[in-house]
């Protein structure tokens, strides 16, 4: 147990410090090369460097490789490779706008290391009722889960600090759940994601100094997905990101097709004092942000805080679910 505590402290520190220290250097580098995009929710022409996914990649890979030296298991190797592949898909989308189907299809291929390394257990665990063995169906679940988590977290990256704050809360909830279930190695791997996103949140929170870009948000999502699979906590992981799932569900049920987010009408508009309010266009998609501002306009910071409060609520539900995993009612 002592070795696990030491490993947890070291890899968490590596993930946090490397991103905390490297991101300001990356901001200057991107600004020098004019790799910036307009912050659509700010008055005037505020340009923000992008993609910050590069510093997230460095922090996560450095910490996970260190963790692999402590625990050389195929599950951690699967987390490292799948996360790098997720980053690669995102960086392609950052550099060149791809069609709506590009990311889901490309991310499905990112699940290959999990299958090739055999880093999964084909039992699907449910709270209160036990588990069900689905060997063939589970392979399909692995292939579907990475695109779902990758795109779900990518689609919540709409305002300053949302995706990094969201990932921080959800991954801390998932790490606590993994520790409750005594899956310590994967729990520590999840801590790397939690501390990496926390360090990035420092620069991404309102007002943002850097945007993660698709490379950052998709990498957060793919890493979260692969941890859920190799940790055998798929249901708990889904519960922890329910606000983002609601966002995707509302979007898909109103648009009724998979499209690139840049192709759709903006579901919100600005008031004179630059708060966000719901659009009058009935053809614009319904999103979580649109619901939050449906009654009255809110500032970007207020909306971000509301989303993070919702995430904390779903994180608590995820932890309660982890406690329920041990209990059986039938």
């Amino acid at each position, binding site marked *: 147990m002592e070795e696990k505590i030491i490993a947890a402290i070291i890899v968490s520190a590596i993930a946090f410090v490397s991103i905390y220290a490297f991101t300001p250097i990356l901001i200057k580098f991107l600004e020098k090369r004019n790799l910036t995009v307009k912050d659509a929710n700010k008055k005037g022409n505020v340009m923000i460097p992008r993609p910050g996914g590069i510093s997230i990649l460095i922090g996560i890979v450095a910490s996970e490789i260190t963790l692999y030296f402590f625990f050389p298991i195929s599950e951690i190797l699967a987390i490292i490779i799948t996360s790098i592949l997720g980053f690669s898909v995102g960086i392609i989308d950052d550099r060149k706008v791809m069609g709506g189907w590009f990311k889901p299809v490309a991310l499905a291929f990112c699940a290959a290391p999990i299958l090739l390394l055999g880093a999964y257990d084909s039992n699907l665990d449910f709270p209160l009722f*036990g588990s069900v063995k689905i060997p063939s169906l589970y392979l399909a679940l692995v292939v579907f889960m990475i695109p779902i988590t990758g795109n779900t977290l990518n689609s919540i990256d709409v305002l300053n600090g949302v995706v990094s704050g969201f990932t921080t809360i959800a991954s801390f909830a998932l790490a606590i759940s993994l520790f409750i279930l005594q899956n310590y190695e994967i729990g520590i791997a999840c801590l790397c994601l939690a501390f990496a996103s926390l360090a990035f949140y420092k620069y991404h929170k309102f007002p943002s100094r850097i945007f993660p870009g698709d490379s950052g948000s998709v990498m957060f999502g793919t890493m979260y997905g692969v941890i859920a699979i190799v940790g055998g906590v798929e249901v708990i992981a889904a519960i922890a990101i329910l606000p983002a799932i609601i966002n995707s569900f509302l979007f898909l049920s109103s648009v009724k097709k998979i499209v690139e987010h840049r192709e759709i009408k903006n579901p919100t508009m600005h008031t004179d004092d630059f708060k966000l309010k719901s659009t009058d266009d009935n053809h614009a998609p319904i999103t979580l942000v649109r619901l939050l501002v449906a009654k009255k306009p809110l500032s970007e910071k207020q909306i971000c805080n509301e989303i993070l409060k919702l995430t904390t609520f779903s994180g608590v*539900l995820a932890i309660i679910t982890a406690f329920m995993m041990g209990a059986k009612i039938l």
Partner: protein
Amino acid sequence: MTMKIYGFIFVMWILILTGGGIVVELVGPISFSEDIEPIITSGVKVFLALFLIFIWVFTLTKIKNWIFKSQVKS
């Protein structure tokens, strides 16, 4: 509105727990006689799982329309 979203998250959580119970207690134990190929049993389970997902999404859509009916018009 925010309270309604909390309510929607809670309903989704209950639906996940209930769906899990149905999968483990009803779909998982399904087995036919030994003469029937195991792939057919798996196929039936996959079909039932997909049907449950359909019911889950359909229920959520109905609840979404009920909870957000005043705000969600498009």
